[in-house]
């Protein structure tokens, strides 16, 4: 699409999408580090993840302010309006992702992984974080490339994350049943799994946003149901 007659308008729109892209990069970085801490239980690294969340929140705030100003001064229309409107939601979803990574890291700093009963559970958490990272990276790529080619794919593959999650859940619950004394050390792992699953949900939200930005249409319920039918057995 060609440029605006008022070139500063282009600059302002770019600042908004650049803000989202940077937020996305920071979230992906945090997720990668989460995966690393699963492997090495490095509490310093976990603390760094916690500390870096503020930067994600600040960026989110700054995107919101820019949206506010551009709505007041430019009254964007059509694809511009979709981009601006969606930026608010994107920022919110990414902030939540950051919060989840922070929540996971807090549990790790408190020692969630110290007495993990089973290697398997940790490995499954690692698998989950890899899958979540990959979905998020796909939809953020779309956003950066101004297309939505991965949106439906990510929407579809969220069910894989869900089933990884329920696998981990069952595993941990069984461990608790067989050793009720371990409940205090196992419950934090439940939370960690839950947080990862929620980051996965944000990836599907972002997929819906990119679809909306590009096509002007919401993913329809029919499309969603169709995907759910395809992927649920």
């Amino acid at each position, binding site marked *: *699409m*060609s*440029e*605006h*007659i*008022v070139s500063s*308008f282009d600059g302002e729109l770019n600042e908004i999408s650049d803000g989202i892209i940077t937020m996305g990069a920071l979230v992906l970085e945090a997720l990668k580090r989460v995966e690393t801490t699963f492997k090495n239980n490095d509490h310093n690294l976990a603390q760094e993840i916690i500390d870096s969340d503020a930067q994600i929140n600040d960026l989110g705030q700054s995107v919101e302010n820019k949206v506010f100003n551009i709505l007041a001064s430019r*009254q*964007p*229309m*059509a*694809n*511009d*309006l*979709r981009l601006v409107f969606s930026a608010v939601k994107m920022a919110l979803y990414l902030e939540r992702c950051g919060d989840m990574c922070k929540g996971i890291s807090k549990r790790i700093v408190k020692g969630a992984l110290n007495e993990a009963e089973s290697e398997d559970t940790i490995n499954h958490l690692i698998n989950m974080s890899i899958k979540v990272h990959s979905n998020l990276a796909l939809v953020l790529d779309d956003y950066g490339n101004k297309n939505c080619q991965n949106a439906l794919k990510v929407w579809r593959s969220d069910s894989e994350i869900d089933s990884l999650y329920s696998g981990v859940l069952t595993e941990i619950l069984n461990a608790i049943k067989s050793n009720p004394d371990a409940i205090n050390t196992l419950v934090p792992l439940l939370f960690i799994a839950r947080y990862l699953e929620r980051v996965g949900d944000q990836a599907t939200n972002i997929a819906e946003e990119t679809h909306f930005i590009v*096509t*002007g*249409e919401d993913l329809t319920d029919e499309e969603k149901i169709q995907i759910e039918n395809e992927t649920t057995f």
Partner: protein
Amino acid sequence: MVTEMDQNVNIDDVDTKMEKKSLIHCTDVNVFYDDKQALFNVDLNINEKEVTSLIGPSGCGKSTFIRCLNRMNDVIETCSFNGSIIINGQDIYDPEIDVVELRAKIGMVFQKPNPFPKSVFDNVAYGPKLHGRFLNKSDMNNKVEDSLIKAGLWDEIKDRLNEPGTALSGGQQQRLCIARAIAVDPEIILMDEPCSALDPIATARIEELIDELKVNYTIVIVTHSMQQAARVSQRTAFFHLGNLIEVGDTEKIFRSPDNEQTEAYVTGRYG
């Protein structure tokens, strides 16, 4: 007690978007000024009792098109028309048609308020008199009052009916022109950039008025303000270089138009 909530209403069954009936059917409209063509094969239907906005860059033919609808182009000597415009089943370019009567049915409001150099009262009474209606004095008084009320002007100027129309503020003059158009009971009101000479408050008053008028009248408005089109109209038509490029629900045009030229124009990318 049975509340609405208790009743088993299926939202999908409720017809929220009633199909509107189209009142004006334009087919293959071509307009020339001498041998220079200003409109090319325009096909456009305009729905009854809603607001249709015409948008597009300067010179694209909006005014030319809106003037076709009440044959105002007839007064431009160099202007020629071919195609068909059917309103209420009647071809308005039929040679049999009474153009004066037609223009009463289809009122027009222009960019610059143009009250006659007469009193406020006479401005409004002019049309009904011209068309030989309401010869009785009290009927005429009622007609003037009623038209000024409908134009949202009565309360402001009921004590100034004998002052010249030209002594009113620009926004009041524009509403006076709307009252003048309404006074002859038109079915359709055409407005060519009615707010372009007005401040934001006067503009808001006109927009509020358009909202009220659309209950009883079919309105076609030319506007250069995307936001105004988005605010006041239910359907929007985009013209470019004499062609109708896209027409659709206003919401759709401003949310995700089908045509790239439309999108470029509404987002301010048209160069």
